[in-house]
Structure formats: C-alpha cells, structure tokens
C-alpha cells in the first residue's frame, strides 16, 4: 500500500476523532465524581503502537502532557511481549507514572489487530478522592507526595478482560467513598472497551499499513502546523518573571521565570531562575510544565488545530531539576495547577511584545479550590470539592471576561441546586466582585465571590487561592486587577481573614466561608476607554463612582 493521500489522512483522522469523542462522552455520562460528570475534568486519547498520541478528544490541556508519556512508562515497566489483548493499565504517579497530580487517574488499554499490538486507547479522569491525609486529596499542608494519596505506578488493572479484583480492592480501600469511586473506575474501563470495539470496526476499512502510516501522517501534520504557526512569531529573545504568593507552608514569593528564544520554526523556553521546589503542594512535574508550555503556545499560534504528539517536535523546554516548575521526588504536587497558571502568565507576558494583538493581560492566575467535608445532619460522611473561576485579562480589542475559568482550567461550576441536593451545604452568594477588574482601554474581568455555609453541622474546610498578594498585571498601560482572599463570616457579623491556602479549618454552624478570587488586568491606557464603555461600567454597578473617578477621571 502506498502512502496515504492528504485526503485519506483527513478521513482517518475524522474516524479516530469520532471514537475519541465517544469515549469522552461515555465517561462523562456514567461517572460518579462531580469533577467528571459536571465539570468534565477528564479526557480521552488514541496512541499509535510507539505510544505517540495521535488524537486527543475534547479535553483539559493539563491532561495532554500526561497522555504524551503514558505509553512510554507502561512500556518501561512491561515490555511489549508482556502486554496482551484484554489488558488494561492503571497509573497516576507524577514521578513514575507520568501523572501531574494523584487524583488524575489514567487507564490505558492496548488494541490488538490479528494478534499484533497496533494502537492504544486511554482516558484520564480527576477522581473526587485518591486517599491521603486530607479529604479530596487536594488540600494544602502536605509536604511530600506520600501524604497526598495513593501512588499508583503503571500496573495492570484488567487482564484477559477481567478486572483484577485484588488490585481493585486495594485501590478502593485507600480512597474515601469507595462505592462512588468504583463507579468512576468502571466508567473509565467501559470507555476503553468502547474504544476497542469502535477501533475494531474501523479496522474493517483500513489496513494495518494504512493505520500505521496514517497515524504518523496525522502526527506529522500537527508538527507542520505547529512549525508554520511558530514561524509567524517574530524571531527574537523574550523574558518575563512573576511570583506565586506562597506554598501554604511558609515559602513566599516563589519566582517563576522564563527566557524564550524564537528562531525560524522552532522555539526554546528556559525556566532557569524559577524558585526551588517547595514544601507545600505547589510543585509541578515535568508533564505539567510541558502541558502549560504547549497550552500557552497553542492559544497564541494555533487555537483551532488538533492536539497530539506532533506539537512537541519544534518546542524545546529546559527547566532546572528540583525547581517548582520541574520538581523531583518526593515533592507534593496536588495544587500544581496554580503553578501551571503562573507558567502560562509568564509565557504570555514574555511574548506580549512579539504578538501584542494576541496576548491578553494577566488573568486571575489561579485554580481556586474549595473543599468541604464532614458528617452531615443525616449522619453520613461527605466530601465535596470545587473550583472557582475569576477575571480574564483585557484583550487588544475588547474587555476581559468576568467570572470565568482561564487558561489550563475550564471546568464548569456545579449548579447550586445540584450542590445543595447532594451535600449538606448552602450557598449564600455567588456573584461578581465589583471593582475587581483592572482599569484600561479594555478593562480586566471581575473576580468571583462564593459564600458557603454548612447546614446544622461543623464542617472541615480547605482552600487553595492564588494572587492574594501579587495582583494580576495589566498590559500596555492597563492597571492591575483585584486580589484574591479567603475569610470567614461569623454569625455576629464580623469577618475573620484566613490564609490564602487554608488547610483543614473547622467551620461551626452559623459561620460562612467566603472565597473571593482575583480579577484581571486591563489592556491599554485607561484614558483611551470609550465613553459608552465607561457609562456601562457605571450603570451596571460593576464599578463604583469612586473607582471611575480614580482610574478614569469619569463622572456620570
């Protein structure tokens, strides 16, 4: 069989993508974890026999890098000859299993054709709990990975199409609310089986050689895309630095630094100068760093293109080992998404001068997390975790979005009605924070305020905030946005401020937890903001008369 034509490659890609999408939907609709079923914190991918990602369905950017090396770690542990039809492999560890934090559990299945290993399918899903010292496995206050939950190296979970019950029981015993988690694992396994069935159908139309050649061509096509897109950036050297507030364990102002060199169709990113890895759980594995870099480049140069292994080829990443952006064992990594956000901030900041019309000002820069657990009035243990968006940065031609997830995260909120039906919690307020969008020709987006209370019980609260100290910066004369904070509203009406990464605080009945996320920076000088926008800022009540006077010298 000769080489596939560009048309046949596109036809095969459509076929594989369709299968990937179907796996993604199957997990979403039958999983138990709120993270998966409502917030879609999961993804699916198809790999070639060499373990390169060929297509990745609709998914979270952070999962891409975990997918990129997944087959490799499985093949490192089990040679090809040990992998048989009907096998599936489980993995989550950032240091030996290519994970980026423990709650993201990957399940990989080899796909055979006439007895020969030809493809892999895999999916990754964020489980509501993976054990460890804190409910939800995401809280601050942990200093090494052992405290964060069950570490799973790439191991077999299914053999000859049967779940290895011993292994499964061991996993389930180590996680909270195992009956629900069982459903999550089942949903993931079922999705891989579905992928297997669908690929077998696809094999009726494509020969082995066509599939192999086609997969390589699909990857090469993405490389070509990436190369030609990078070529559009002006050659040059660019640099930027920023800081993370703290690690929740005493280390403050953690630097994140990037130096970028762009030449022709390739780009080099060096993170030398970033802070050493920290005791708290803000550390990023190399997979997480890779994912952040690829995300930042993709949004700037090729937002519409597909994602696969081919993206990596023209992108060269260097980062000091043992740093907060490329941590070594046994660093705690649960909150690595915060660091990913800052990595993206500095890449966008550095490239602002190169592509001023494509970058946006600094966003809320966090992956705001709130975790609640306790024994409700019905006597049952519960555990609930959610993430909260904030402001998005001003753009070169329009305002930043208010109250939205940014960059590596795009997980939806849980409807208040769903939350209150499932958990003994009550949401007092969910609203935009007035005045939190940085002034500018195009203003930054507003942060979010979410206020919760427990119903008739004492609960345990942990949180993860960022940009509580260092405000999200504006660009080209735009002002900074509002900072984040976490506080308690006591029943006597007073407020008690909490650290930005509170770990396991007891919250008595009658006390409410208030989380405020950061707004975002503005773009361009405030003096250039048009009158219609100024009037809308005032009339909408999003900005006070005082704010409007101070930053725009505007009076209605």
């Amino acid at each position, binding site marked *: 069989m000769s080489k596939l034509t560009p048309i046949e490659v596109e036809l095969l890609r459509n076929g594989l993508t369709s299968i990937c999408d179907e796996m993604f939907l199957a997990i979403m609709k039958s999983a138990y974890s709120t993270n998966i079923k409502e917030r879609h914190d999961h993804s699916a991918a198809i790999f070639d026999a060499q373990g390169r990602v060929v297509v990745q369905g609709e998914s979270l950017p952070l999962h891409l890098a975990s997918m990129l090396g997944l087959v490799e770690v499985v093949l490192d542990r089990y040679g090809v000859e040990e992998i048989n039809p009907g096998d599936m492999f489980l993995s989550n560890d950032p240091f030996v299993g290519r994970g980026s934090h423990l709650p993201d559990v990957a399940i990989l299945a080899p796909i055979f054709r006439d007895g020969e290993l030809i493809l892999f399918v895999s999916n990754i899903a964020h489980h509501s709990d993976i054990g460890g010292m804190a409910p939800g496995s995401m809280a601050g206050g942990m200093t090494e990975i052992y405290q964060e939950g069950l570490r799973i190296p790439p191991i077999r979970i299914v053999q000859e199409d049967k779940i290895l019950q011993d292994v499964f029981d061991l996993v389930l015993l180590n996680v909270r609310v195992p009956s629900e988690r069982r459903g999550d694992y089942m949903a993931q396994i079922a999705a891989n089986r579905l992928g297997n069935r669908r690929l077998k159908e696809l094999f009726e139309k494509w020969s082995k050689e066509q599939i192999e050649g086609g997969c390589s061509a699909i990857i090469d096509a993405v490389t070509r*895309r990436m190369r030609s897109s990078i070529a559009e950036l002006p050659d040059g050297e660019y640099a930027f630095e920023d800081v993370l507030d703290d690690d929740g364990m005493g280390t403050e102002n953690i630097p994140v630094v990037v130096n970028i060199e762009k030449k022709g169709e390739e780009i080099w990113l060096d993170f030398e100068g970033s802070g050493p890895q920290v005791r708290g759980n803000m550390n990023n594995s190399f997979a997480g760093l890779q994912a952040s870099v690829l995300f930042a480049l993709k949004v700037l140069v090729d937002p519409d293109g597909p994602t696969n292994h081919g993206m990596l080829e023209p992108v060269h990443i260097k980062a000091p080992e043992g740093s907060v952006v490329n941590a070594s064992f046994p660093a705690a990594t649960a909150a690595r998404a915060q660091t990913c956000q800052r990595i993206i901030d500095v890449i966008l900041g550095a490239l602002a001068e190169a592509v001023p019309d494509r970058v946006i000002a600094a966003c809320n820069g966090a992956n705001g997390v709130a975790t609640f657990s306790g024994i409700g009035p019905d006597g049952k243990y519960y555990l609930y975790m959610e993430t909260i968006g904030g402001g998005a940065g001003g753009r070169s031609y329009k305002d930043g979005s208010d109250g939205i997830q940014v960059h590596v995260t795009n997980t939806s909120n849980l409807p208040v*009605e769903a939350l209150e039906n499932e958990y003994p919690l009550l949401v007092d307020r969910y609203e935009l924070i007035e005045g939190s969008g940085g002034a500018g020709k195009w203003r930054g987006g507003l942060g979010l305020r979410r206020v919760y209370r427990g119903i008739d019980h004492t609960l345990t609260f942990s949180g993860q905030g960022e940009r509580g100290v260092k405000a999200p910066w504006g660009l080209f004369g735009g002002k900074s946005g509002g900072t984040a904070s976490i506080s308690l509203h006591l029943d006597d009406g007073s407020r008690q401020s909490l650290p930005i990464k509170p770990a396991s605080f007891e919250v008595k009945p009658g006390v409410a937890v208030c989380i405020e996320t950061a707004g975002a920076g503005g773009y361009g000088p405030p003096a250039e903001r048009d009158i219609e926008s100024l009037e809308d800022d005032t009339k909408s009540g999003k900005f006070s008369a005082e704010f409007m006077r101070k930053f725009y010298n505007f009076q209605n």
Partner: protein
Amino acid sequence: MTVHIGVDVGGTFTDFAVSIPEKNMQLLYKLPSTPERPDDAIIQGLNYFLTTHKLKPKEIVRFGHGTTVGTNALIQRRVGKVAMVTSRGFKDLLEIGRQTRPKVYDMHQDFPKPLVPRWLRYEVSERMRADGVVHTPLDEPELKEIANILREEQIDCIAVCFLHSHAFPEHEQRAAEVLRQNMSSDVSIMTSSMVYPEFREYERFSTTVLNAALLTVMSAYLDRLTKNVAKTGVEAEPTISQSGGGLMSAAYSRQYPIRSALSGPAAGVLGAAYRAKATQEPNIITLDIGGTSADVSLLADGEPSVVHSRRLAGFPLRLPALDVNAVGAGGGSIAWIDRDGLLKVGPESAGAVPGPACYNKGGVAATVTDANVILGRLPDTSLLDGRMDIRRDLAEGAIDKLAEKLSMSREDTALGIVQVASSVIVKAIRAISVERGHDPSKFSLFAFGGAGPLHAIDVAKDLGIKRVFIPPNPGILCAEGLLGSDLVADLIQPSLAVFDQNIFEVLNVAKSNLSMRANDWFAAESVDAKDQRQTWSADLRYAGQNFELAINFKNDQFNRDTALALRAEFDKAHEVAYGYSQSNEPVELVGMRVKLAGILSKPPLPKTKAGSVLKSIGSRKVSFGKNMWTETPIYRREAIPVEQNFEGPAVIEQMDSMLLVFPGDTAKIDGWGNLIIDLGQAED
C-alpha cells in the same frame, strides 16, 4: 371537501404543502420569504391557492405553521425588554453561567452577554433549601419596592427566577402574585417553575429569560398573522410547530414562545417522520443537505430522538428539542488546504452569493458543488431545469488550484472533496446514532434538501446502511411534515427520591400530580378523550450520578413489584448506554415526565400513479469512485414507472434536486413517490 395546509417559513423560502384527501391530491408551492414581515409571504401563498386552485376558504380545516420568528429575534437580539427578580446573592448568575469559556484554547471567544442587563436584575430576600425548608422567608415589602422602580422602566416582562423553585415553587408563585398586583396589566410576569421546572438553576433561568424576551415578539407576530389570515376568509386557527416536534395552539405559543424557537431544523425531520410512518419504515436517519450545512437526526420506531438541552444564539435552552446535529458540510461548503497540508471542507460556505465557482456569480473557491460537476454527478450544463447555467470550466479552474497544491489529479481531488464532506457528515451521524447506542446499519437513510440525495449513497455505504429513501420533492419536505403532526406537550414533575421499598408511593404521588396537569392541558387544547395519548417515563440514575436515563412505563398505578421492574429496566438501559450496570448500587428517581399528544386528523399521503416504461433522456460519464468512470443513463424522475426495479448506474434529474444510483445498486419508485435505493454488496 376538506383541505389541510402546512406552511413552513424558512430563511430563504416559504414552503407550502396542501393536501386534499378526497381528491388524492397534494399541491406544493414555494415563495421567497419576506423576513421583515414573514406573514406577507404566507398570505401571498394562501391567496395563490384560493385563486389559482379555486379552493374555498371554509374548506381549509387545518393550518399548520412552522416559524422562525422567535429564532431570528433572538439571533438579532430584537426582543422585548425583560427585568429579572432573583434570590438574594444571585443576580450575577445569569451572567456567570457555568463560569466556562466556549473553547478551551480560545482566549478571544465569549458567550453572548445576557439578554437582561445587570441594572435590570434585582435581588429579593428569600431562600428555599433543597429539601423545601424555608431558609429565608420571602420579603414582600422588598418586592413592592422593586415593583415601584420597575414601573418607571418600560418593561415588557418580569422573569421571576428563584433557587429550588423547580421543586418548591411557592416563593416564585407568591412573588409573581405580588408583582402582578403592583405592575400594570400590560407587563407579563413569568416564573421559572412555570416555563420549565427542572433543576440546574442557570439553564432554567436562561430558558425563562429567553421565553420572557420573546413574549411580545410572538404576540405581535401572531396578532398580525391571524388578522391577515382572517381577511382571506380562512377560519382555521394556525397551530405552531414546536422545537421538540408536534404542534401547539396559537394561545399556548403566545405563552411559551420559546417552545418554537428551535423548530426550524425540526420541520424537515417531521416531514421525514410523516413519510416514514406512511411507508412503514420505522427506523430512519435523516440527512438534509442544503447550501451551507448538513442536518442529521435519527428516528427509532418512528419517533424522532429528543434532547433536553441545546444552545440558541449562544444561550443554553432546557426544553425538548429534536436531536438534530448540524455540521458545516453543504453544497456551497468551501474546500481548502489547512496549514498542516490536509484537505478540509467547510464550515466556510460560498452560500448563494458568490456561490460555487461553476455558478459564475463571482465565486472562485472550490466547493462541494464544483467537485460534483467535475465528477459528472451534477450536470455541467444547467441546474433547476435549465434556469441556472453551470460553467464546467470555472469548476475546473477552482479545483485545479487545489489539485496542484496536493499534487493530485483533478478528478482525485474532486473525489477527495466529496469524500471529506461525506466523512464530516458520517461523523455527525455517528454522534447521534452510535454515541446514543444505535447501530446505524440497522437504519435506512432518508435524504432530502437540495444536495442530500447526491451524497446519500456515499454516506450510507460508509455507515453500512443498506437502504436509501428519497422523497418525491426533496426540497419541499418541511411543509409536508406540518400536515402529519399532532398537538403535543411535555410535562415534567421533579421528584428526587431514593429508590427503596416504598418508592412506589412517591411514584404514584408524582403520577397523580402529572395526571392532573395533563387533564388541564387536554381541556385547554380541547382534545377529545378518544384523541388523547400519553407516554410516561421516569428519569433514573445511580445515586451519585448526574445524568439520568428516561425509562418508559405504562400508565398504571405502581406497586412494589412494578416499581422493582422499573429499576431492573434502568439497569438494563444503563448497560446498553454505558457498557456497565450496578444492580447492587442504590438508584435515585429524579423526576417523571409525560408526553401528551392530541391526535389531529391527518390527510393520508397521496398515491403516485403508475408511469409507463423506463426511458432515459440521455447519458453522461459519472465518477462513482476512484477510477470508476461509467457512462450513465439519465432519467427524469416524473417519468420513472412506479414499483418497477431498475439497476444502477443512473442519474435521476428533477427540478429541485439531483439523484444518483450507484452501479450494483437497485432502485424503484414506491407507491408514495419515494425513490428507494437498495445498496448492493459493500464495495471497497
């Protein structure tokens, strides 16, 4: 004599289907739409039938109407002025939505701004808990204050949207009463629990606001339409097509205009359903290809699939809508080479202007239509019975530019364009069949729209489909569907409960509630007992899941055993849908639904008269695949004899479409005028 009329108003054309059962006659008619005043074209068409065909106004007993008035108003944001009153702490919810951006990798795309600006969103102290406990009582003096302010604004409607009102509507209802007493009577008041009582507040509030915004739009339109229809002497009240299929009375439509907002793509599906029913082909996949898009949907056992969540003009809508999946692959879709060197088709379309290159109206880009001309699948002389000239040289020029970049021959490039367009359509069909647990090879493909019949065979072969149906007038199917529809309504009763020993009691309570509301609807729509139909289902899930499966049940009182049987049905359905079931895990009831239908008298489809002998009017070379050029006879559709098999290859021409029969396939025209193609052995 009785006459039934269906009028479907689309963006470009207003289509009419008139049925006169006593004469075994169906008349079709097409006029350009009049978007600024859509009723103008309707009246023009009515007058045409009354004068040209000598129909008497009083003979018209049914007037089914599909309208996009609501859809267009929302897309253009030319809607009523709405204020919102919501629970304290939540006035921004309508703006925050689900706190996501439309595309992960796109920092520049946003969801649209809410239809109610922030200064018209008011909070009132009140709060229900999830279990119906009043956490904060409704503050009526606050409401009166709000009414005082709103009286100064020229408001058309107030949407009252409180948390947990889907299950506990008391606060919403009371608030609506207080506002009613304090606002002038020309301001409408809508509660979210009345528009669609389902949990997930953002989607419910959004749906309520969309409905509120359309109230004045729809009323103004229906006022004008009924007045002008009355002037022609026609007494039949228009019944309006709904997004979820079926019709509703004009009165119901005035109250719930949002229910027709997605009826545009539904119309063709209903036309297909009408024909499918008549021809006893219950399992079909519909394929409607126009200039810019291909719309696909699935009917199992004659019933169109329905989804409960859609987007309209960027806003989420929680109401039943036919599960129509649209992709940007139509006749005018442009073929291009992406930056990765691969050939892509659509979603960009050359539309009617500048149109495909071969139309010679200024288009230079290669389109699917140009590719079809190169392949001989479309004639290279003219279309529309000679009314539109085709320039083969222009098609060649456009395709050659791509062929050169791909280093492929002109023919292979043209074939590639058609194949890529088909693969995009196949992907869309997989999403509504395979991904929903249906095996497409067990369905027939029902192709319509100007370009549907041309691509149906390629698509069918790829999906393993063995039979293709093409209605007599593929371009005017939508209006016909209105003749075959009934009055319908969907009622839901939220009822969250664990499926335990005593669940049958909960089920019976929900059922008697719904029964009462069902009877109210039948009375309001004046449906006789003999014409009433009810389809009952319960929404179930494993406790801890978030997506429910609807399990049908019979309209009998529940007891322990039948409740248990319902649960067993759910386990089975879960296994089918998701590949696993957990019969030992607890199940939750989320709600109950009943679909009501008031059966309307429907004209039977007219029978086609048998023609004479099959005789071609010429032949041309057609490419049916790589290196498969075949000299192919051309037939006029109206001259093909009924119930007589003939073998492909064949080109069949008619005014509004072009049909292909591949070599090895067998075709015939059935008694209702449908062209039925049975596909031979799958070829490589």
